[in-house]
């Protein structure tokens, strides 16, 4: 492509030039694809295949320390899923809850930045992204301190008798809160991008055609923002399902998510179990995402 567009290349007379140009263009495009494809093959396809093979291995002895050998042991899947079904469901429950809360917070925020912020727009966008300048591990640790039992938030909430467990840290509330906090920018930014593209005249036209603000939002703004809503929920839901940091730092053994289980199983060398759980998680997420995109009517995202 780049070669064909170079001004110095002489254009051959007659009908010979075009075919040659097309050929060159094609070759260059493939050439440019090589680094990306190589990266995908070495760091995604091969590990994925190896993980899949691992998930079917058979133990040589009674414990994980005895080692494994290649096999086609499908029971690994049924055993892992029946043993850790609670954590599995809990992950989807927490991630779903966090996604909904993120959407409820992000939509008004993104709407405000897109339509009302005026000259503050760029500053607000920078503020949304600003937390990324600091590692999310450190930020989550910070929340551990802020939400601690003797911290002022917990003390204050307790003085109003708001907390059923008398604490925030180590409860599902803290874990879902952590997920919401950590994934909020991934919801706000795509939402902002699609709201910002909406012509404000369309919203005026809705009002002009007798739509009260709430109806205009339902009939015009939200349908037009749908690509952003879908992208935002996916970017939040998918990583939140597999997250283990928030549960580990802000939760307790009773809030263990599937990510924590996988991490523990890998750590104690129970590789087939961990691999089977990883694959199951991936499969379920794929099914959920496809169903969701179908139902949201935004196939063009795929």
């Amino acid at each position, binding site marked *: 492509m780049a070669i064909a567009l170079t001004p110095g290349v002489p254009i051959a007379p007659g009908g010979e030039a075009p075919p040659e140009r097309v050929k060159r263009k094609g070759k260059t495009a493939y050439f440019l694809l090589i680094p990306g494809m190589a990266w995908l093959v070495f760091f995604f396809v091969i590990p994925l295949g190896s993980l899949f093979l691992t998930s079917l291995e058979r133990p040589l002895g009674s414990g994980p320390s005895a080692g494994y050998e290649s096999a086609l042991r499908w029971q690994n899947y049924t055993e892992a899923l029946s043993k850790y079904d609670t954590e599995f469901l809990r992950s989807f429950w927490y991630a779903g809850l966090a996604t909904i809360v993120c959407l409820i917070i992000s939509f008004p925020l993104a709407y405000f930045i897109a339509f009302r912020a005026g000259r503050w727009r760029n500053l607000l966008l920078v503020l949304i992204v600003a937390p990324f300048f600091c590692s999310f591990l450190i930020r989550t640790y910070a929340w551990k301190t802020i939400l601690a039992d003797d911290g002022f938030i917990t003390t204050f909430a307790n003085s109003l008798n708001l907390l059923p467990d008398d604490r925030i840290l180590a409860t599902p509330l803290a874990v879902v809160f952590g997920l919401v906090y950590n994934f909020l920018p991934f919801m706000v930014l795509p939402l902002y991008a699609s709201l910002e593209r909406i*012509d404000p*005249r*369309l919203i*005026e*036209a*809705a*009002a*002009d*055609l*007798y*739509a*009260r603000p709430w*109806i205009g939002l339902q*009939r*015009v703004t939200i*349908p*037009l923002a749908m690509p952003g809503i879908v992208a935002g929920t996916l970017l939040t839901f998918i990583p939140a399902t597999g997250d283990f940091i928030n549960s580990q730092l802000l939760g307790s053994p009773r809030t263990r998510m599937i990510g924590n289980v996988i991490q523990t199983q890998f750590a104690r060398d129970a590789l087939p179990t961990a691999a089977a759980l990883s694959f199951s998680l991936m499969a379920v997420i794929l099914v959920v995402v496809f169903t969701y995109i179908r139902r949201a009517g935004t196939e063009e995202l795929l």
Partner: protein
Amino acid sequence: MASSSSSGKVEDLRLVNLVKDYSGVRAVDDISLTIPAGSFFALLGPSGCGKTTTLRIVAGLEDPTSGRVFIGEQDVTIKPPYQRPVNTVFQNYALFPHLTIHDNVAFGLKRRGEKDIETKVSDMLDLVELSDLARRKPAQLSGGQQQRVAVARALINQPDVLLLDEPLGALDLKLRRQMQIELKRIQVDVGTTFVHVTHDQEEAMTMADTVAVMNSGRIEQMGAPEEIYELPKTAFVANFLGQANLMEAEVVDRDGGQLVVQAYGNKWAIPTARAVQNEGQIIVGIRPEKLRIALGASADTEATNSIVGTVTDASFVGVSTQYLVRTPWGQELIAFEQNLAGGDRIRVGDEVSLTWEKSHSFGLAGHENVDAGVMDLSGAIAEAVTESS
């Protein structure tokens, strides 16, 4: 909610002392006018003159700083847009891209919970000849078709007033002419009051019963197109609505119903009734098509006004030839000559005389700037940029 429109009677639109300030800049400056029910009214002016702001205030999309808007006896000034018996055809149409043509047109009826929506929508689509495209999305339609959808979507609600914001601005010239006739036909058919905002003087004159020329937030002059074209009251109107030759002069005498003025050694006469002032410094105006151009010195200086000059440019445009004639005092005047004889009689460099009927002259206030309202090139470019954005 919009009972006044469903009752079928059409109401006057009345603006009373309307003012709109944007952070210190006055966009609309004390506009008062009554637009009679059923008329086709054009607000004409250059970009930034406040015409669109006025329209948006009527639509309820903008709140006036002060002043009131009445539809019939009803004060709608503080009513939100969705409660006004008014609909808008937006610039670039603002069709809902996610809805079909059918659903776009049905949008207003559905919001008001009307009955027989299907029948009304198909009737309306028939009227604008788009029935075949009802299931398409706006992006699949041409500009002219989108324009008709926008009109249909607004008109189906039977508003008391239909507002059109530069509705033809995005169309090419030929289609624009077609749509001008089409819109005028629809307006006559339905009898709704149309308020049409445009910067295109030809469009305004072709379509409207009444034209209001706006400049810097004020209405400079208002009336039937022929009336304000033939007798502009300000230099801005004279220049913005068509072209005009404006010359500075001084009133030296009064002769019956006429003012005798002197300019650069020439003596001309103007009917007193056609001059906004009848003494002192004055500006004499004459439309280019009223000038007769002839080789050599003029014959009858008693019956007509005349000037001698040199042709500096002659552009043949088919139906007419446009001449630029330099006067002895260095001003360039425009004259149109209808293509009656055929061929090119007068050439650049020829000495010519320009004559015109005394009764065709008009007189403007002497303190005015003769270039007010002349669309200069930078202005035209700025306009094009705003439109395309």
